């Protein structure tokens, strides 16, 4: 087994340690702490995280990974949604016929649609549970106030994504659920009818509304969601990591006894510029 691992590593090293590989990833294979920190420093996606995290902060029991799980459902929804877009036309009655095609004609079409549907339900629930967890941890308090606000906005965007997506199959369920919602918007004082007209692209729920909901669902709202999620995660790092309850030295010993191996080396040279 060890020989196999070593062979795999040397193979990987040979693949990355050349002119082309070095042009993409400048540091070598992440076997030293220096390289492990360079992975985070120099990777566009990973630099959203700090180089080092507190051991307690990454324990499942601390957060139940609810934020991470919400992000995972968002990724799953993007991937499955892209697949569904290949087979879907936002028009009446083609939209409904495309759903039937996905169900009966397209290979694995019904599976992808199921995955998209159930992941969407899961995302609404997970985002809400994440908000509850964060509230009870008291993590909305300074210095994390604004990240809480971004989180609330993300919850709203999640609901809007669910709502716009609900219309797209153009079946009875979709049509009347969305009607309930647009009638509520209609009740807004003074500007209600205007809002409803803007949402529907007309006075009644028709093909115009389907196109609008489709564009919002596939372009605008996902773009806003991804942008806010990026800021949301990046700000965790900027606010000094997630909020942890104070713990005694005894707790550290107890937890670190679980077979964790601490890297002895330091991530960055310990320089501090003064004056």
């Amino acid at each position, binding site marked *: 087994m060890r020989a196999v691992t070593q062979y795999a590593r040397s193979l990987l090293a040979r693949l990355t340690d050349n002119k082309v590989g070095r042009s993409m990833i400048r540091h070598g294979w992440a076997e030293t702490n220096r390289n492990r920190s360079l992975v985070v420093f120099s990777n566009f996606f990973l630099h959203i995280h700090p180089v080092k995290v507190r051991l307690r902060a990454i324990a499942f029991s601390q957060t139940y990974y609810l934020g991470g799980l919400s992000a995972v459902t968002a990724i799953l929804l993007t991937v499955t949604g892209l697949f569904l877009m290949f087979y879907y036309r936002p028009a009446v009655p083609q939209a409904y016929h495309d759903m039937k095609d996905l169900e009966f004609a397209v290979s694995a079409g*019904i599976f992808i649609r199921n995955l998209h549907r159930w992941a969407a339900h899961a995302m609404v629930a997970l985002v809400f549970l994440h908000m509850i967890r964060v509230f009870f941890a008291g993590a909305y308090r300074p210095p994390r106030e604004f990240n809480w606000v971004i989180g609330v906005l993300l919850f709203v965007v999640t609901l809007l994504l669910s*709502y716009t997506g609900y219309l797209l*199959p153009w079946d*009875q369920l979709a049509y009347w*659920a969305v009607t309930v919602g647009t009638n509520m918007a209609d009740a807004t004082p003074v500007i209600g009818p205007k809002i409803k007209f803007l949402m529907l692209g007309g006075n009644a729920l028709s093909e115009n509304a389907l196109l609008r909901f489709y564009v919002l669902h596939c372009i605008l709202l996902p773009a806003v969601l991804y942008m806010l999620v990026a800021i949301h995660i990046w700000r965790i790092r900027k606010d000094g990591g997630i909020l942890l309850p104070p713990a005694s030295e005894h707790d550290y010993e107890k937890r670190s006894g679980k077979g964790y191996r601490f890297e002895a080396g330091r991530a960055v040279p310990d320089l501090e510029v003064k004056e």
Partner: protein
Amino acid sequence: MSESASTFAAVKGEDSQRDPVRLLVVQGEARPPVDATTEPMVMTVPHLLLRELITLLAASLALVLISLIFNAPLEEIANPEKTPNPAKAPWYFLGLQELLHYYPPVIAGVIIPTLVIFALIIVPYFDVNLKRKSLFEANSGRTMAYWWTAMILVSLLFLLSGKHPVWPIAGCVWAVALLASFGAAPKTWGALGRWSAKKSLAYWVFYWFLLTTTALTIIGTLFRGPGWSLTLPWRDGIY
């Protein structure tokens, strides 16, 4: 002296004696984060990254299994002429739709959701009790009088303002009022009292919000049938 040398050399400036400036101090145990801790730290790569990957795989696996077993609903094609009874929104909006039963659309559909979102946004700026002192910590007798007066007024608001008395919300107000009150006498009420005595006002307001949204959503999802009449899911099924 420096002109003939092939590499550079450090030279003392003319003003070094007049204006001594310390450039940097090299320290052994200083850490970049704002709040330096003695906590055990681990490298993000691989420790956090690995956990993230496992989360991705585990959640994907669970959703794939669900999707292999359960099919997403698809009814007949949309027909504006044929209104189903009841016409229900997806489950996460049924709390709001349940509110439509009690209040006109402008209150249930516009004002209340806007207020809830607004309240959630201002939570961190409004919380004056940052240390989360428990509700009955100081002067519990007077706090108790204020607390129940406020709770009765709030529940009356919900019982009298709608087309029908809003029992789900008023009931949650009383439940939270009662739960909080155990905290005034933790010694009498044992574990329940000790749990309750630790909670601040912010907690109780949030408990009430959670209890209310859950109650309204469950009623709207399971207990409402044609014409939004009360039904029993075990007798009439789920609409």
